[in-house]
């Protein structure tokens, strides 16, 4: 095997800019998730996985990443996150499907870098759960340094967030924490039955809207020139749901509300793509599997609010065994940084194998998001989204050493540590400069803000 290190050295010296190179990650324990685990190498070229196996042919000029004693996994995929966006909830209305988190992507959210440094390469970025029908959602890659559109996972089906249970009705409940303003600011619905009603009414509207547009499209096809119906951004994404062009991600906890949303979907002829949280999913796992809905849940979080009293840590394993595609998510920028150890808990609770557990934060969420052709496992032709851990990845002791996304090195622990001193120095310099300026009399400044 021919090894050339020049490219690696150049890259480290150059610092920030990331660009696709040819890499050979050599002599590590490769956990492919889809094709077993072996000691061997992964070859990365043009942003894709060229080859993975015990013996590979390294292309000339490839940069070698020595993974001796280390573990290589597919990049972690978080199926439920709210990072990298500047708003989460448009909670003013019960149906806020007109808003799209795509419009408020913040590529400079430090949580992106931190998640990526925790091995996450892809995340499903969701609207919040303030309303029965929330905003539009999308899948991002953690390409730290790219602009807003540079983060978007090309080709991933966009989604929409629905929410059931306590959160969406809290805003309508005079006792829901709104205090003295409750009378003027409360909004429908205030009950769980109201939540169902809102969703059904919205789909009634969407069906009527769709038939208007279908009639218009048919007329145009016949060569007529009618005035098009008014384009309604609230109903447009629901029309896409009815047409199967947009995934529905439903925030849900209790068994009854899970069955309720599956019935609505059946009644109106759409599919629930994923149930999110779904902590009582183990009670209705068969029904979830029959609907072909994915379940994205927490590992062992329970009793943090009324509707999670019956949560059990075996939930993920039970649903999996009943035939549901299950993923483990974070819903939190901190938890997002160690989803690998969250997956490990599924081995303890439910006795899953390492591969099955790891799949819950890689291949399974990829399936749920319809991106398993591109990511989720280490297979030839897939995106080179790879994580190098120093220890067995499903352990609390494992730490991320390197992260590649699209074959580019986005995180390198050594480089990160080496750069920290310079960053601190830069910060101290600015603080001192500001202090010095403040000490001078009459340092200019805008009016309305007093100089320190």
């Amino acid at each position, binding site marked *: 095997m021919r090894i050339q290190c020049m490219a690696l050295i150049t890259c480290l010296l150059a610092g920030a800019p990331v660009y696709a190179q040819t890499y050979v990650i050599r002599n590590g324990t490769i956990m492919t998730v889809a094709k077993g685990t072996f000691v061997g190498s992964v070859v990365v070229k043009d942003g894709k996985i060229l080859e993975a196996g015990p013996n590979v042919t390294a292309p000339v000029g490839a940069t070698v990443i020595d993974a001796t004693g280390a573990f290589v996994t597919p990049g972690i995929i978080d199926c439920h996150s709210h990072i990298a966006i500047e708003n989460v909830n448009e909670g003013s209305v019960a149906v806020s499907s007109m808003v799209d988190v795509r419009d408020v992507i913040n590529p400079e959210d430090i949580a992106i870098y931190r998640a990526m440094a925790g091995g996450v390469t892809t995340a499903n970025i969701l609207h919040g759960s303030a309303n029965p029908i929330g905003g539009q959602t999308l899948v991002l890659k953690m390409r730290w340094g790219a602009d807003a559109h540079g983060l978007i996972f090309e080709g991933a089906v966009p989604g929409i967030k629905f929410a059931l249970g306590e959160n969406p009705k809290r805003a309508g409940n005079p006792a829901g924490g709104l205090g003295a303003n409750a009378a003027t600011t409360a909004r429908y619905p205030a009950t769980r039955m109201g939540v169902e009603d809102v969703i059904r009414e919205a789909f009634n509207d969407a069906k009527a809207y769709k038939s208007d547009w279908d009639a218009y499209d048919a007329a145009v096809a016949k060569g007529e020139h009618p005035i098009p119906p008014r384009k309604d951004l609230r109903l447009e994404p629901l029309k896409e749901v009815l047409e199967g062009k947009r995934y529905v991600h439903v925030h849900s906890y209790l068994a009854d509300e899970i069955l309720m949303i599956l019935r609505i979907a059946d009644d109106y002829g759409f599919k629930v793509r994923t149930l999110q949280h779904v902590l009582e999913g183990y009670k209705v796992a068969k029904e979830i599997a029959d609907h072909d809905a994915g379940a994205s849940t927490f590992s062992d979080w329970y009793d943090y609010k009324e509707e999670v009293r019956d949560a059990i840590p075996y939930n993920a394993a039970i649903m999996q065994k009943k035939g549901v595609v299950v993923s483990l998510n974070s819903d939190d920028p901190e938890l997002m940084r160690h989803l690998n150890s969250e997956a490990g808990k599924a081995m303890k609770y439910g006795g899953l194998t390492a591969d099955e557990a790891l799949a819950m934060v890689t291949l399974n969420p990829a399936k749920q998001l319809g991106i398993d052709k591109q990511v989720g496992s280490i297979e030839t032709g897939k995106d080179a989204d790879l994580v190098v851990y120093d220890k067995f990845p499903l352990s609390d002791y494992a730490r991320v050493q390197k992260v590649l996304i699209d074959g580019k090195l986005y995180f390198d622990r050594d480089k990160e540590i080496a750069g920290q001193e310079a960053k601190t120095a830069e910060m101290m310099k600015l603080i001192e400069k500001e202090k010095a300026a403040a000490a001078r009399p009459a340092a200019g400044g805008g009016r309305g803000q007093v100089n*320190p």
Partner: protein
Amino acid sequence: MVRSASLSAGSAILGPWPSHSILLFRIDLGGGVVDWFPTLMRQTVAALLLTSLGAFADDPGAMAIRNARIVTVSGPVIAKGTVVIRKGLIEAVGDGITVPPDAWIVEGDGLTVYPGLIDSLTTVGIPSLATAAAPAGGRGAAATPAVTPTDTAAAVTRSMGPEDRPRTTSWALAADEIVATDRRIATVRGAGITTTATFPMRGIFGGQGAIVDLLSDEKPAKMVVASPIGQYAAMTGGGRGGGGGGGAGFPGTTMGVISYIRQIYLDLDHYQAVKAAYARDPRGMPRPEYDRALEGIAASKRLLLPANRLVEVDRMLRFAAELKQNTVLYGGLEAYRPEVAELLKKYNTPLLVSLKFPVRVADSDPDEPGTLRALEQRDKAPSAPAALEKAGAKFALYSDGIEQPRDFQRAVKKAIDAGLSKEAALRALTLSPAEIYGVADRTGSIEKGKIANLVVTKGDLFDDATTVQMIIVDGRKYEPEPVPATGAGGRGGRGGN
């Protein structure tokens, strides 16, 4: 008459044609004194004039500033030249101009004449918006938007969606709201600002701006130079976007505002299609509803969108391209980052840069310096105009609520100290905003035929020691307001012994 006080003080007021002005016979500037009548006659003639102003209303008087340094902005600096003003316009400018025999003369030795400054985004002229001088989406980040009758009405019936046209007064015209009695007019004029791009900054779509000449004691009709010049838009939601209820209703977040704006542009397309169909053949067709919000959007020559951070610049430029709407960005906090200028050039969009540069909040915890980004913003924001100049991006400067001339001057000086050339600073406050708003054919530089908006200084305009001697608006002369003894921006240690 208010002006009689300045008459006896020996200072000059010129501009004989409008009924409210008074002729004056002794011009004393920069040491040069010209006596037009024997001293004994002065009071008599003045009294005569005061009683017969009407007779002089159409007097084609002229004024000449001679032997002054003239910074034309549109052309080279004239080291020693003359500007002749007649009927509110610049009649002639150059070195070697013959002063017309009927012109009052100002001896300009030691003085510099600049075009009047243009504040490219403000509410000056609309006194009810004075408290919300900082645009909601701009640097000042005013926590409480101005309450207008419209806002109050909106709060009572909570907006339930885009159809309720939340916080929208797109049809409102600044030109209809301008009054000469706004106390800020005389104040900001002291900084040499003769002209403003005044916008009704309210809600999401505030309404149409106007180019306004800052005259005092004048009919609003005389002040408006151009209207409408564009639609002011802000991105701030009504609050309570978070898990709770609706608060002020939809939209409560930036993404809500964006979806609302997107919807209103879609509605406009549909509205125009339906209206056109109805106009072709109204018989048998339901009459389309009149929608004043959409009429206001349709009349918008350009849309002003807020963008401070690089992320917002990128977001708003993409959004404007999607709307196919001619756009001007305002804010520019992070325009020191080279990507901003590149984006502005790529989308061929100008940026109005706020002069309210961020400073560390007084009494903030010394152990909490904030993020590296916040530190960088406070350090580098004043270098944003310099970065835009170097990159060749189109930009103008705006006061963002700074009122006191000294504060305004200091803010510009700060940008100059951070690398902005004096020429570019002046251009960003004169010809560039005039070009951005499409009024460079009539104002923004000292050229023959343009409006006589001038500022005359002793010293370089933005220097610390410079004093503004007179401001000429529409050919009428004003003096800076006396600096308040304990002004907000006053230097420490004033007074004493």
